[in-house]
């Protein structure tokens, strides 16, 4: 019986643990996927080619609280270094850092005015290293010209188009070319593709002038990976539950075989089949209950272990999982007891008491 109890406890542990992980995977992996950068882009949809601060703020109201990883607005402007044209991007650097955590910066992020990040391609062209300086010249929005020295705080390596840009704070860019609207706002939000679609639809409907667009390569691959991971967890759980059922059934069959004489005696003393069924099902239900309770506790520990070691984050206990695990344990042990109970009711007292 101890073997059966252990089997139920292990089954319930895996069930409870895997279901916890199953429901936590989107959250956990959602956070992981945020390291791949923005998954929602806001651009202008109206006559005005840029987004105003007000439009951006109104659109941000539709982002679910607590799920915003970073919202980085960008302004672009062409400027020259030694008469060579380069694209300057002004942004909120702290937000850009959060929205694009995959950027590798050789050196450091700008901490004060007059500092800039340059892409690797720019650094190669003008032969600059972190700590070096360059002079930026160009034309401001009001038609005047500007010339200003910047120091290189770091060099960005992304393997993408960012390596051809010079990044500086919005304040620095505004000081150079004058205040203005954003060309694009890159948003990194911890949400599923469906949730993002919903957010985008709400913004399109309620914020005129703003066109939200999902970064499909991120959202779709995220959804596909999550679906596959959840299917795997589901499959593993189903297999473990099946094995648990087989183990409990085998153990209960052994128990019935061991107690054939006792069952025969009880039937000879007048025990009806109903009493024998109740007795063994009662043992099964007790096993299911105790094993299920153990499983709930151990399952949470197991899920926490998996989460901390695989995702490096802790999880929270889902209260509904306690009754669900208990009910599933009862069902598994109940099903596993069917064949042994049938075998117990088939015991012929006349035969077993004769010792045959």
């Amino acid at each position, binding site marked *: 019986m101890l073997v059966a109890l252990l089997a139920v406890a292990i089954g319930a542990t895996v069930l409870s643990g895997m279901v916890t992980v199953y429901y936590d995977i989107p959250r956990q992996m959602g956070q992981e996927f945020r390291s791949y950068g923005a998954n929602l882009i806001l651009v202008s949809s109206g006559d005005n080619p840029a987004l105003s601060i007000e439009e951006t703020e109104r659109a941000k109201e539709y982002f679910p609280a607590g799920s915003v990883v970073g919202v980085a607005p960008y302004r672009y402007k062409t400027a020259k270094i030694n008469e060579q044209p380069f694209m300057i991007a002004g942004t909120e650097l702290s937000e850009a850092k959060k929205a694009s955590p995959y950027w590798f910066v050789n050196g450091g992020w700008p901490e004060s005015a007059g500092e800039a990040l340059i892409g690797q391609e720019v650094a190669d062209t003008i032969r600059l290293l972190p700590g070096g300086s360059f002079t930026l010249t160009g034309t401001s929005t009001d038609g005047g010209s500007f010339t200003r020295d910047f120091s290189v705080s770091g060099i960005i390596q992304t393997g993408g188009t960012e390596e051809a840009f010079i990044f500086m704070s919005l304040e620095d860019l505004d000081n150079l070319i004058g205040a203005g609207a954003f060309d694009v706002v890159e948003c990194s939000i911890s949400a599923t593709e469906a949730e993002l679609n919903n957010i985008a639809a709400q913004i399109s409907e309620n914020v005129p002038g703003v066109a939200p667009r999902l970064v499909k390569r991120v959202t779709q691959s995220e959804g596909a990976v999550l679906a596959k991971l959840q299917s795997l967890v589901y499959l593993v759980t189903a297999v473990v539950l099946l094995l648990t059922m087989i183990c409990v059934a085998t153990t209960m069959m052994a128990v019935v075989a061991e107690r054939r004489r006792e069952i025969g005696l*009880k*039937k*000879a*003393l007048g*025990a009806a089949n109903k009493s024998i069924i109740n007795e063994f099902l009662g043992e099964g239900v007790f096993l299911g209950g105790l094993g299920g309770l153990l499983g709930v506790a151990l399952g949470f520990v197991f899920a926490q272990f998996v989460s901390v070691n695989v995702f490096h984050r802790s999880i929270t206990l889902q209260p509904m999982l306690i009754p669900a695990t208990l009910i599933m344990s009862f069902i598994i042990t109940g099903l596993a007891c069917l064949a042994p109970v049938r075998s117990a009711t088939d015991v012929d*007292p006349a035969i077993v008491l004769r010792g045959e």
Partner: protein
Amino acid sequence: MNLLEMKGVSKIYGNVHALQNIDLIVEQGEWLAIMGPSGSGKTTMMNIVGCMDKASRGSVILHGVNISQESAKNLTAIRRDKIGLIFQQFHLINYLTALENVMVAQYYHSIPDEAEALRSLERVGLKDRAKHLPSQLSGGEQQRVCIARALINYPMLILADEPTGNLDEANEKIVLDILKQLHKEGSTIIVVTHDPEVADEAQRTVVLEHGKIARIVRNNKEV
């Protein structure tokens, strides 16, 4: 008054005729012994009378009920309510005490009553051994627990299969004395035995051979 009436009872297993055309009447309060060599059909007869098997042919009327036509469920109920079984191998549940073993029969019959179970043990002289496990009891004591269990529900018929088969002479005497006392109190007893001394205590002995009644001995005189 007849408690048991067997008319033309046969039991056939494949080609084997374990019992053939048995006619037998047992009166209420009678002590009947069934003797015979191995394979003569004693156990088959006990199983049929004890509602643990059904006759292939004929009728078995126990206290007015034709048990050869009853369902397995009804046979279980009749066995529970009307029959007390005593086994050669005692068949006590080894993890239960003597008292609990007696109460098992109560549990399936009605409601377990510890005081009544203790009285039943007292009747067989084992009140002071009530809390002992079967492994802590001698063979004779285990058989007395088995008798106490058989008596607990006040059965109409006590069926004893070789009740002294596993006992020494002293314990055999104790068990026989208990059976005599029960008979004196009016119990109907059917004993299957190989032991002529046990059979001698019965009012009537039926001798089976090859599934048939070979002879009947009443008060030590063949009839």
